[in-house]
């Protein structure tokens, strides 16, 4: 850490960091780009690589994603339950052990600071947060947690995601444990071993496909990634396809579709607010969330489908006739559907599937229709 009062260091661009699998990606011809402060592969420059091929492989077989940039946190100690209840909008009382749940970190005004996964372990809570926001998240959590609650950053843990209809078949072959991998259904997790190494595995992910997220010691990450990729169903997949897959699945991306300007309500993520808490409140930012619920919001996050092939991207303005009614927060070509798709915040009156709108792309108006998400149906193993 540098002293923030030291003005000499204040404007120094932080050095891009490397992840445990950096050399592994480079050896497989990953095209490395800077993302969330780390070097990460956007795609693999090999036969059968490239964003569209990797995207399609994941939808048809199984793709291995390195998501070790994400923050893995562990909260424990006296009063952790009550402390977390005061922070997260979920109904913690209904969170059973070992099943991750999707939740939000909100600021005091109800704006979204991050989205995350929270799992109840035996004597604490395991959180997975976004890579670009993890340092701010830890500061925010520390500020809002009593001193008796410990916040640990599990920096020595790597995180892999294996996603796709053949993910189960491939992972089952290399996994041992007290019970079979098939015991896990969507949003359930457990402790297993891969190649003799302890692995925390949950049946979850961010592609809309069946799949798993696998936390393993960083020092074993390369051998385990090798073993999983040695299965015929599996290829490594880069960030590019990760983005197009999650967009098709209608899953919002923090920093784009989610930001402190929005609450979980205008982001159409009411399900991240526990039923009881929608009336009782009592979590950080609940005033805004309850107000948004009662009064509605001026805009809502919607999906948009475009004709033709020209994509509209983040920042493009949405029009109804001459009137600007919204802005895109994500957009790109959908390899599965063969046309572009997008997410945008638009005026609530127009946030109805079937509404015809237009998107301004470089001065040209592209026709778009409000579309229920996901764009491509989820195939979770429930």
């Amino acid at each position, binding site marked *: 850490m540098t002293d923030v009062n030291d003005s000499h260091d204040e404007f120094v661009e932080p050095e891009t960091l490397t992840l445990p699998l950096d050399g592994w990606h480079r050896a497989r011809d990953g095209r490395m780009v800077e993302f969330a402060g780390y070097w990460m592969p956007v795609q693999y420059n090999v036969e059968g690589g490239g964003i*569209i091929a990797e995207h399609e492989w994941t939808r048809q077989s199984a793709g291995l994603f390195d998501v070790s940039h994400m923050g893995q946190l562990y909260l424990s100690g006296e009063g952790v339950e009550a402390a977390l209840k005061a922070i997260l909008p979920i109904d913690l009382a209904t969170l059973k052990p070992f099943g991750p749940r999707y939740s939000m970190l909100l600021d005091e005004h109800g704006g979204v600071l991050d989205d995350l996964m929270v799992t109840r372990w035996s004597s604490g809570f395991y959180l997975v947060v976004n890579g670009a926001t993890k340092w701010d998240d830890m500061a925010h959590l520390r500020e809002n947690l009593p001193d008796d609650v410990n916040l640990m950053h599990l920096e020595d843990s790597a995180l892999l995601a294996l996603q796709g209809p053949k993910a189960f078949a491939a992972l089952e072959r290399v996994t041992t444990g007290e019970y079979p991998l098939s015991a896990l259904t969507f949003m359930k997790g457990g402790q297993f071993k891969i190649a003799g190494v302890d692995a925390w595995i949950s049946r979850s992910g961010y592609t809309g496909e069946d799949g798993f997220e696998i936390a393993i010691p960083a020092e074993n990450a390369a051998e385990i990634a090798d073993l999983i990729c040695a299965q015929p169903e599996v290829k490594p997949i880069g960030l*590019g396809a990760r983005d197009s897959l999650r967009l098709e699945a209608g899953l919002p991306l923090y920093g784009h579709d989610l930001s402190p300007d929005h609450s979980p309500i205008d982001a159409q993520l009411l399900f991240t607010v526990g039923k009881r808490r929608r009336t009782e409140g009592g979590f950080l930012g609940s005033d805004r969330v309850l107000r948004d619920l009662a009064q509605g919001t001026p805009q809502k996050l919607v999906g948009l489908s475009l004709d033709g*092939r*020209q994509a509209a991207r983040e920042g493009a303005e949405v029009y109804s006739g001459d009137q600007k009614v919204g802005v895109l927060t994500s957009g790109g070509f959908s390899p599965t559907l063969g046309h572009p798709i997008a997410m945008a915040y638009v005026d609530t009156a127009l946030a109805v599937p079937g509404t015809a709108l237009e998107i301004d792309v470089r001065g040209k108006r592209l026709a778009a229709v409000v579309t229920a998400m996901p764009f491509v149906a989820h195939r979770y193993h429930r």
Partner: protein
Amino acid sequence: MPRYFSEDHEWIDVDGEIGTVGITDYAQSQLGDITFVDLPEAGSNQSKGDAACVVDSVKAASDVYAPVGGTVSEANGALDSEPELVNTDPEGAGWLFKLTVGDAAELDALMDRAAYDAYVAGL
């Protein structure tokens, strides 16, 4: 027929006064999978350096600049249904547009293949 290259990774083949323009293999490899090409209209006038065309990849939209000035005579209509030709055959069937070269002297500022290859090797 001589082929010239720009620092922005366009190529132009000149046959008489007609130049055929595309992007190089290096450019397509950097852009990744191309999903759409917004081609210029025949008859439109382009000055050297104008954004004549937009190539959309899964990742981003990128401008293609006119390597020399001229009047567009034809766009490659095959790209409407098969934009991936720019990936698979960038210096052949994946050409973008043809133009009537306005001032042949502008070609002098471009590189030949050997110079371009050396330029790319230095990137």
